[in-house]
């Protein structure tokens, strides 16, 4: 295929300072097996005593070739792999991929499916923020927050299991709508969760917000200026904590987000504490959105009636020849998409999650590119960590909120 490449130490020389080569500073390997790198992230640290001079992230340990594999599967089959990218935001990954397909083939989605999509992605955002909060607090030595967060997260995973049959990898959202309608007890369960959850947010805040240890570990740590955030293409809570009120749910609404009343929380300090405050407020805003979506949840079908893309309901197969043909065609060959490209992005818990989808007049995508927020946001870790202590690096990895499945794809 190509000539064998030989890796020499010289190729890595430009990454460390002159002092490292003279032996003045220490090179330390952190990860890939390290509890507070939140997965398999390896950091090459250049240290002067305990302060970080340089931090070189090394990613790719979780690379599974999802983009390549998607090119070999039909559009619907490839949707199953989207859950495996960012495993804390599985519904969001399904959503952006299905939105891209719907844009590419110009497919409509009924209002009930749109509302359920919003409810589930917002619940998933809460679940993802809870994992972030729990592990972030755990890294800063607050054990009980972790246990409380996972208690509530489990309730959300139960709701997702109730709909899609699995806690995490449900692939519940499908092109043109949903896998099937939500069960009868869905509304009550979600309402019950909404009733208890706001008090639980107060509980987490009581443990952390005014906690002097937590404040010492997060205030003025990893300050990211507004200019740097934009230059490095940072999105999501990390951008909003640097004073930019940018949220794709407001800027370029999808799934009917324009109908719901919610705020974009921002902070101007740009440090780890500001990012904590933004995410905590986002938890409350997500509760507001779910509440509104539940209150005006429309009735009706949850799948598009366009039989060229969406398989007919099972009940029609026994009586309609046409339905049988559509069913057979869709589950064997799949549907074709035009030879053109679209880019669709949604606001994931971590930032802009985008899919660039290109068709080739055939039933399989020609190219699927995932613009994942963790990959882009992780690039600023060297910038954030310069001059801080090794112990603070743990807080910084937590505050960027990366998921390695999302970074490595």
């Amino acid at each position: 295929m190509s000539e064998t490449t030989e890796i020499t130490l010289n190729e890595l020389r430009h990454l460390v300072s002159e002092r490292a080569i003279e032996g003045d500073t220490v090179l330390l390997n952190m990860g890939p097996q390290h509890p507070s790198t939140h997965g398999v992230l390896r950091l090459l640290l250049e240290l002067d005593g305990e302060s970080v001079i340089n931090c070189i992230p090394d990613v790719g340990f979780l690379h599974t070739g999802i983009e390549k594999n998607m090119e070999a599967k039909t559009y619907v089959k490839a949707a199953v792999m989207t859950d495996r990218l960012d495993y804390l935001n599985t519904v969001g990954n399904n959503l952006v991929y299905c939105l891209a397909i719907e844009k590419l083939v110009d497919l409509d989605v009924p209002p009930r499916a749109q509302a359920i999509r919003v409810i589930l992605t917002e619940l998933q955002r809460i679940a993802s923020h809870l994992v972030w909060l729990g592990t972030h607090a755990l890294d800063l030595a607050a054990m009980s927050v972790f246990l409380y967060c996972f208690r509530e997260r489990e309730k959300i995973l139960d709701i997702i299991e109730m709909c899609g049959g699995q806690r995490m990898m449900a692939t519940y959202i499908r092109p043109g709508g949903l896998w099937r309608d939500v069960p009868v007890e869905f509304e009550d369960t979600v309402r019950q969760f909404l009733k208890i959850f706001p008090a639980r947010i107060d509980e987490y805040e009581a443990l952390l917000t005014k906690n002097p240890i937590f404040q010492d570990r997060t205030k003025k740590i990893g300050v990211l200026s507004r200019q740097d955030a934009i230059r490095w293409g940072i999105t999501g809570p990390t951008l909003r904590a640097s004073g930019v009120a940018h949220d794709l749910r407001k800027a370029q609404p999808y799934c009917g987000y324009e109908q719901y009343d919610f705020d974009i929380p921002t902070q101007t300090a740009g440090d780890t504490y500001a990012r904590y405050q933004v995410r905590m407020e986002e938890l409350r805003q997500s509760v507001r959105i779910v509440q509104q979506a539940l209150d005006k949840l429309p009735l009706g079908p949850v799948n598009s009636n366009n039989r060229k893309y969406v398989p007919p309901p099972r009940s029609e197969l026994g009586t309609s020849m046409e339905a049988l043909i559509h069913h057979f065609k869709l589950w064997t060959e799949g549907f074709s998409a035009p030879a053109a490209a679209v880019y669709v992005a949604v606001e994931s818990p971590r930032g802009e999650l985008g899919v660039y989808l290109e068709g080739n007049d055939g039933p399989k995508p020609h190219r699927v590119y995932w613009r994942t927020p963790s990959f882009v946001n992780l690039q600023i870790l060297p910038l954030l960590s310069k001059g801080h202590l090794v112990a603070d690096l743990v807080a910084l990895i937590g505050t960027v909120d990366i998921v390695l499945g999302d970074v490595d794809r």
Partner: protein
Amino acid sequence: MDAHLQAATQAIQERFAGQVSEFRDQISLIVAPQQIVEVCRALKDDFGFDMLSGETAVDYWPAQEPRFHLVYLLYSLQHNLRLTVRVPLNGNSPSLPTLESVYPSANWHEREIWDMFGVRFEGHSDLRRILMPADWEGHPLRKDYPLGYEEVQFSFNYDEIDARKPYAKE
């Protein structure tokens, strides 16, 4: 089309002889490889496209002219607009200038494109593989790179497949 986007695309068309195409309300501009840095600088400084959302490539093998398209997904925070810039690249080992001087975040995107497609970026500060191991051979997202399953050998095609196996080369 939005008035600001119209002005931006028109200016690029006039200054750099770019081509404009539209699909489902999404605008893309096609420009030549050597112009990409100037085009993006003009879009950033004069028209407020201050963010590089993403950067990727598409392989059209077996076509060779152009074999690749580089795709730059630009976003303007102040105008809330998206614009795609596409750059056609010919041949099997193409290269083009890096965009790091305009958007620093291009650094990792370009490392990923080098890793996955084997497109070289001239003047890049740190062009190493990013996702694959450093000693990996080949560029996995190219269309002529096999997906990687083991082919089943039967008696009638045993030798034919055997000749293609990696150990056969040594």
